[in-house]
């Protein structure tokens, strides 16, 4: 594994200060699971926070010694000599509250009841996550991030950071983003949620007590989600109309390769992802709309931001199409913010932000070189 940060160990931080959520609910105490790569410099100025999207975690880069196949989800982006260079930056990945990878979430035991939170877990939002991340930064002694970076839902967190904590973020790296979901985006999320909540094994979200998981619902949710991450062309390229057994069989089991692929993805997902977390995260997506508080004026919502921005979109992304990123760029221009915007001609759809596209990685690398140079200039 060349240029890997190597074997990494996740850490846990416990928080006793209640997290007052946007919904009005309060999370009295919680744990955050996180990983760090690279070295925090003496000035504590070289920290970069990487925010995860729907189904990812704090495991952003490197691998686990006990299972080297468990490679971080953005390992192609982050490591020594990589676009986000851990020789220069101290990189933090954190699992958000409500997650299912070690941070306090619906599957965690509520100390008040001795049972899993389940349906009683607060409906957390992007704003709540960013608040929790800021507290983690406090505890790590990081007053200001050199950059906060994310793709998709992670990019929404990078935007929210620039709005909520303008003095604590020098650069906001916003990739494959949207300033809010469209009706179509919400509709897809609703189908996924319905798949989960109508599964008889869901038990209103309190399935833990029954020792079951709403596997069918999770599979369907993942399948529909997965379709929206890929472009029509990418799917056609990958699967075409290839048949599993070489012929159609006049039945409703798997005939086409794409069916087999989706079922496999769904199965895998239902093994490791929590159904309540899926509901929460899709809801966080639905509710994110910083412009709403400013009569729909995104420029006004972004007015407090003082960070420099790097915004990138992918031409074949129909889930968060380039037009959505251009809305963000327009709002930044209205505020005369510093912004570099790249529209990358990539065929892979929304998933492109995770893939090895040379132009994309070169841009991120160049941008982070500027971030590193700015750090040098401050010292």
């Amino acid at each position: 594994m060349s240029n890997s940060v190597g074997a990494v160990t996740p850490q846990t931080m416990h928080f006793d200060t209640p997290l007052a959520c946007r919904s009005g609910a309060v999370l009295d105490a919680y744990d955050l699971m996180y990983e760090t790569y690279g070295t925090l410099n003496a000035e504590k100025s070289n920290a970069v926070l990487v925010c995860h999207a729907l189904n990812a975690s704090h495991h952003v880069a490197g691998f686990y010694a006990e299972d080297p196949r468990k490679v971080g989800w953005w390992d192609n982006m982050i490591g020594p000599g990589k676009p986000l260079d851990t020789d220069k930056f101290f990189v933090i990945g954190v699992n958000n509250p409500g997650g299912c990878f070690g941070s306090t979430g619906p599957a965690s035991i509520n100390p008040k009841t001795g049972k899993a939170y389940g349906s009683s877990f607060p409906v957390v939002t992007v704003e709540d996550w960013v608040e929790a991340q800021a507290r983690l930064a406090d505890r790590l002694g990081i007053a200001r991030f050199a950059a906060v970076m994310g793709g998709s839902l992670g990019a929404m967190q990078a935007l929210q950071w620039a709005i909520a904590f303008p003095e604590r973020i020098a650069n906001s790296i916003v990739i494959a983003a949207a300033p809010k979901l469209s009706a179509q985006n919400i509709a897809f999320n609703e189908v996924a949620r319905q798949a989960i909540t109508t599964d008889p094994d869901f038990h209103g979200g309190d399935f833990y007590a029954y020792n079951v998981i709403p596997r069918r619902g999770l599979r369907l949710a993942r399948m529909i989600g997965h379709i929206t991450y890929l472009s029509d062309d990418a799917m056609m390229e990958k699967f075409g109309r290839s048949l599993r057994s070489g012929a159609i069989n006049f039945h409703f089991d798997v005939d086409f390769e794409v069916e087999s692929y989706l079922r496999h993805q769904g199965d895998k997902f239902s093994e490791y992802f929590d159904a309540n977390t899926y509901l929460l995260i899709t809801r966080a997506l639905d509710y994110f709309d910083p412009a709403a508080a400013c009569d729909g004026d995104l420029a006004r919502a972004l007015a407090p931001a003082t960070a420099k921005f790097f915004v990138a979109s992918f031409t074949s992304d129909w889930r968060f199409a380039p037009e959505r990123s251009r809305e963000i760029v327009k709002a930044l221009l209205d505020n005369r913010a510093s912004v570099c915007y790249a529209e990358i001609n990539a065929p892979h759809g929304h998933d492109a932000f995770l893939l090895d596209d040379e132009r994309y990685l070169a841009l991120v690398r160049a941008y982070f070189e500027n971030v590193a140079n700015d750090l040098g200039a401050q010292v």
Partner: protein
Amino acid sequence: MNAALPVPAIAGRADLEAIASWVPPGASVLDLGCGEGLLLKYLNRSREVLGYGVEISDANVLACVKNSVNVIQSDLEAGLAGFDAGSFDYVILSQTLQAMHHTEEIIMEMLRVGRQGIVSFPNFGYWPQRLQIMRGRMPRSDVLPHLWYDTPNVHLCTLSDFEDFCATHAVRIIERIVMQGDRRISFAPNLRGSVAVYRFARV
């Protein structure tokens, strides 16, 4: 803004020096087809100009990022829909006008988005080029280096052509600099100048 950083050279691009000389400190600038962002980098470092570039080429967008210049990847031929009316002091189009398909539209868009427009372009009326045409050949020169079958240029013009265009499109020319190499040309510019730079506004 970046006063401590070295001011990059724009020598060799006399048209950029002329353009830069017209942009006052602190102005806001939109540079269409900004290439590698050299003009913006120069303006930013020499006179704290807040600038944004617009570029379509991946390589140039990357170069702009490397030059720490604000850049927005976009196709000029599609207009400037992402930019509000009157949102910039100057909208610049250097050495790009002749390669635009939607020539009228982009000039009008420049004057919608900017208070003033600045263009530079190769003067097709430059005498060595006229001579080459008289000899029966498509002209080639320092400012028109391309072969006829392999050129981005589709809308070449002379100074007189451009000035006629302005007159018929309610565009008021404020200032003009004509050059041959680094020299400024005032006598018989349409014959002796190889590059022209214009600053203009709405009538």
